[in-house]
């Protein structure tokens, strides 16, 4: 196995609100190796997007990293100043945002916006070389290079998403974070973009963190899957393993609640209750109020995130048989 390029260790992040502290990310640890695609899956409010903005340190004013480390090639990003962070953001780690329309400025040509991103982040920048690079990126994401002199409104939804992907690739990052990039798109377009994104990631041997609530999409694009629940990483393993031998009851519940159009029409399971309010997270394992296997220890002590063999990690007092 290759050296990890990203190592997140015990990351904890809180949002300060009028009503109190929201513990959005709680002791999250994982690694990412070169060329690996990690899927982060979880329901809304589980902290998956919060992890992403921590990695890029694009924190809103009321968000604070309370503890932990983010090592990129051995350098901890957490204590770095905004000035220092700018040197790695976009060049080493870049991000594809959820709403493609909002990440493109309607009054500038799409190509110019990508060139501007390169100008901001690259030291030896030259305009002709940059245009050449944009044309190359457009071909890579499946857009006609002639489109670079058009405006975002002339693009369809799928084309915009491709342009945003091209922008994220502009500075040859080592790691790309994709935050639900296909959620707003129709299935046929989503399918094409997923395939292309996966192909590009493998071709360029980049690390990718793909964030989604849709486990079917995650199954398609990831080598490894991390499952988040209420701000914590509850399970992480390779895709095959997590889909067929889940250890955490939440993962198992999530899998069997998800309908599929192939295979036998099995009964969908129902998780009782609702995700907790992170202003007042439940003590112990945060899943215990909804867990069918919960006992008294689950309500009192936080289960350790430990290995169950073969790079399969989970945080549970009552792990399911694999």
């Amino acid at each position, binding site marked *: 196995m290759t050296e990890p390029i990203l190592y997140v260790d015990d990351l904890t992040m809180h949002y300060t609100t009028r009503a109190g502290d929201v513990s959005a990310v709680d002791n999250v640890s994982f690694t990412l190796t070169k060329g690996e695609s990690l899927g982060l899956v979880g329901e809304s409010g589980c902290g998956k997007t919060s992890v992403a903005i921590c990695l890029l340190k694009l924190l809103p004013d009321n968000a604070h990293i309370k503890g932990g480390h983010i090592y990129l090639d051995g350098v901890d990003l957490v204590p770095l100043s905004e000035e220092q962070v700018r040197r790695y953001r976009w060049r080493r780690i870049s991000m594809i945002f959820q709403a493609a329309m909002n990440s493109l400025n309607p009054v500038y040509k799409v190509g110019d916006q990508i060139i501007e991103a390169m100008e901001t982040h690259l030291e030896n920048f030259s305009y002709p070389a940059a245009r050449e690079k944009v044309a190359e990126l457009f071909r890579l994401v499946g857009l006609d290079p002639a489109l670079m002199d058009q405006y975002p409104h002339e693009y369809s939804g799928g084309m915009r998403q491709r342009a945003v992907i091209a922008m994220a690739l502009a500075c040859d990052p080592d790691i790309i974070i994709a935050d639900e990039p296909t959620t707003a798109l129709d299935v*046929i377009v989503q399918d094409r973009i997923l395939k292309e994104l996966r192909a590009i990631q493998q071709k360029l041997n980049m690390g990718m963190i793909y964030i989604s609530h849709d486990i079917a999409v995650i199954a398609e694009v990831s080598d490894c899957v991390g499952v988040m629940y209420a701000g914590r990483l509850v399970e992480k393993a390779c895709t095959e393993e997590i889909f067929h031998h889940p250890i955490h009851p939440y993962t198992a519940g999530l899998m069997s*609640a998800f309908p599929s159009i192939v*295979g036998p*029409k099995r009964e969908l399971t129902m*998780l009782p209750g*609702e995700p907790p309010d992170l202003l007042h997270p439940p003590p112990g394992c945060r899943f215990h109020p909804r867990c069918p296997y919960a006992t008294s220890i689950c309500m009192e002590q936080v289960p350790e995130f430990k290995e169950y063999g073969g790079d399969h990690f989970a945080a549970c007092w009552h792990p399911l048989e694999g």
Partner: protein
Amino acid sequence: MGEALVRVAGLSKFFPLTRGLFRESQEFIHAVEDVSFTIAPGESLGLVGESGSGKTTTGKLLVRLLDPTAGHIYLRANGSEVDIATLRGKDLKTFRRRVQMIFQDPYESLNPRLTIFDTIAEPLIVQGIGDVLEREERVAEMLVMVGLTPPSSFMFRFPHELSGGQRQRVAIARALIVGPTFVVADEPTSMLDVSIRTGIMYLMQDLAQRLGVTYLYITHDLAVARYMCQRIAVMYLGKIVEQAETEELLQHPQHPYTRALISAVPIPDPRIKRQAIEIKGSIPTPINPPPRCRFYDRCPIADAFCERNDHPPLRDVGGGHYVACYKT
């Protein structure tokens, strides 16, 4: 099939592109064009399509939120069929007791300034059913039915105090309180998280059985439609291109569009690799579309015959499986 509860015949809705005071618009968006289908009592028909396919417009026509440009919607009531496409005034209001709608976004479909009681009781109030106490009891009963118990702890809360799943339950209670026989459900679970979604799906099925409700279930998600519907109709650019029993449609799709759509649905199992059927381009806007097959521009198997002829009619290929394509 016995007598249909809902029979839609040649339903169309065109939206004028420009609105002038003195000038009639020459360009129309053909949102829904010549759509026909039937739904049997107790059945649930899935209307599946991408955004812009006209599925939501069809749903809104059926509950008369929109007035059809042409066509008929027959609803069976008390043993006879009534054409509800042309109802007006008092008749229209009474009709609304029989046909209701559940909307997609539970954050938008509840008035933030009304309590849960006021929201659920609104249909009773506008229809003039019951006095205050009776309404309170019926609302409480409805809350129990949709699983919000005890009702007294929910009745006088506001929508913002409830979670998404709870709000959708309120929306369902509100739609069912007047005892409709037919409910149009417009993507009722697409805004909800997976762990919440299953509960709502089962609730809707359970209520359909207990109260004898028939659904038109509108969705973009074939996997959800598989669990909610006995039959599925696939829409593309305002037309139904294929219609069949759910499993039949998923296992043996005939229309090239349906095939592409099914092959594009991601599968929550890394072991299964999907076959790839690619179609070009993306769904256009149907402004004054040419009379030929709507799918012609993107179709991988279209030929000169398809170009010359009108949009193909739905024809039976056996076992209640209908396809609108010349090439299958």
